């Protein structure tokens, strides 16, 4: 995955998050304050305004810039979380112009650690981590088996989507939802679904003719 593919991924996730805006806000209304989809869409709108200016940059700087823009324009708890997710991806990516499966595994692991440090959440707390963690595990396995990035990324995205769906069975222990305790069971976590949409967009943006690892 190179810079142009990354730019395509950012545009694709922005578009899809805008389409799912009301659905995501609806999920947040069940256990929170119902603004999640609106906040995320607002963040990626700001990203889209900046994308052209980043076209010449390497993947690392693009991801770090994306993190900074999300930090100042998303709002809510999801703002700093997504900002940390993208800036940690960018830091771990360094200056390489091409991201392969092993690099992406290291990058996703770094973002998982960053978000955990920021919010103090753990897998099972019914947060975005419950989509990110399975994606990281899947990608590390595929990196060990030298699976090419497009397939590896799709399997990671599916793991994330599965994780997001499974959050419905969990009791929330972070954010506004935690105040419902048991009553949060039955409602999936909006942040986890946002993460699944992001990772799926990354996978879909990787072109077929990637050189086999």
């Amino acid at each position: 995955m190179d810079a142009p593919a990354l730019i395509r991924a950012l545009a694709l996730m922005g578009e899809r998050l805008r389409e799912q805006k009301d659905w995501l806000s609806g999920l947040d209304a069940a256990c929170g304050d119902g603004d999640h989809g609106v906040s995320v869409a607002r963040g990626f709108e700001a990203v889209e305004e900046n994308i052209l200016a980043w076209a010449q940059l390497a993947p690392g700087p693009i991801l770090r810039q994306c993190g900074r823009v999300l930090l100042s324009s998303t709002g809510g708890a999801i703002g700093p979380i997504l900002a940390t997710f993208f800036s940690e991806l960018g830091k771990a990516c360094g200056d390489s112009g091409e991201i392969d499966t092993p690099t992406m595994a290291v990058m996703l692991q770094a973002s998982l650690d960053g978000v955990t440090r920021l919010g103090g959440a753990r897998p099972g707390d019914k947060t975005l981590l419950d989509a990110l963690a399975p994606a990281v595990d899947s990608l590390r396995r595929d990196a060990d088996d030298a699976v090419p990035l497009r397939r590896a990324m799709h399997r990671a995205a599916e793991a994330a989507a599965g994780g997001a769906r499974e959050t419905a069975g969990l009791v929330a222990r972070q954010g506004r939802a935690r105040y419902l305790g048991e009553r949060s069971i039955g409602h999936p976590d909006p942040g986890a679904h946002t993460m699944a949409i992001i990772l799926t967009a990354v996978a879909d943006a990787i072109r077929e003719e990637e050189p086999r690892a």
Partner: protein
Amino acid sequence: MKKLINDPNRVREELFEGFLAAYGKQYNLIRVGEGTVAVRRDIPDGRVAVLTGGGSGHEPLFLGALGPGMADAAVCGDIFSAPSPDLIVAGAGAVHRGAGVCMIHGNYAGDNMNFRIACEMLAEEGIPTFQLRVWDDIASAPPARKEERRGMTADVFLIKIAGALAERGASLAGMVPVIERAREYCRTLGVALTSATVPQTGKPTFEIGESEMEIGIGMHGEPGVGREPMASADSTCRRMIDRMVADLPFRAGDEVLLLVNSMGATTYMELYIMARAAHRVLAEYGISVHATHAGPFFTCQEMAGCMITLMKLDEELKSLYHAPAHSPDYFLMRALE
């Protein structure tokens, strides 16, 4: 949704501009950069700066707390959502006078993370900070997990204490144990009668039945102890005070500050009647009320409901409470000696 606003998506900017038009001149307040950060101009050098902030839509807090002896900077996020780190950094930078910045905000996930990132960014610029997360709502978590409790009206007292310490030239490190003790001495509990409407969406913050009330409900309708039938002011207030007294616990002989807060659409008539009940129940416990403040301090749009905050006083906190202070929306004006 009937409200005297213009474009629902610009309420944050417009209420901020209106506040500055109304009080900017009188309180030497200026805007910082493009966002919604208001700071005081005349802060003496070498003094700790006090910064507060959070989502808009809770007015008078946080803008109404700006003034001498109170807050030096107020950072406003969108309606009900935390301000971004770069806004907080801009506000802190504008009021820093060499002795660091004391930040006071509610204990919400978004606020905690954004303020934490801002503090890390400020540390890189050599500006020391202290982040006081306010967690006074006893309904949101048991005493053993106090750090998970939501922040409510205790901000009002804590900003007053921090502002007085800064005015007296206390160091940032010196302020920390005092404001942490003040936070420890604060307990709050609310009761909601109706929900409110979010300006951008026109949707209600939560649903509640025609003859129901909920004790312990959060500002945006986060569930509290549970729905129950409407009850009288006296019986409701007694149950609220009983739980707060048991939580600290407050003891006979203690002296307290009492805040009776309207959540937005509550009449002063109801606030005075709740204050009457609070004074009676506290007297039964042998707890004396040093001063009472009734009115809208921390609201949630046009929500009908009442929040009661008790803060235990010791000699130091009492003298800090009485230190001169002045702010646009009557945040603990200089009390009469």
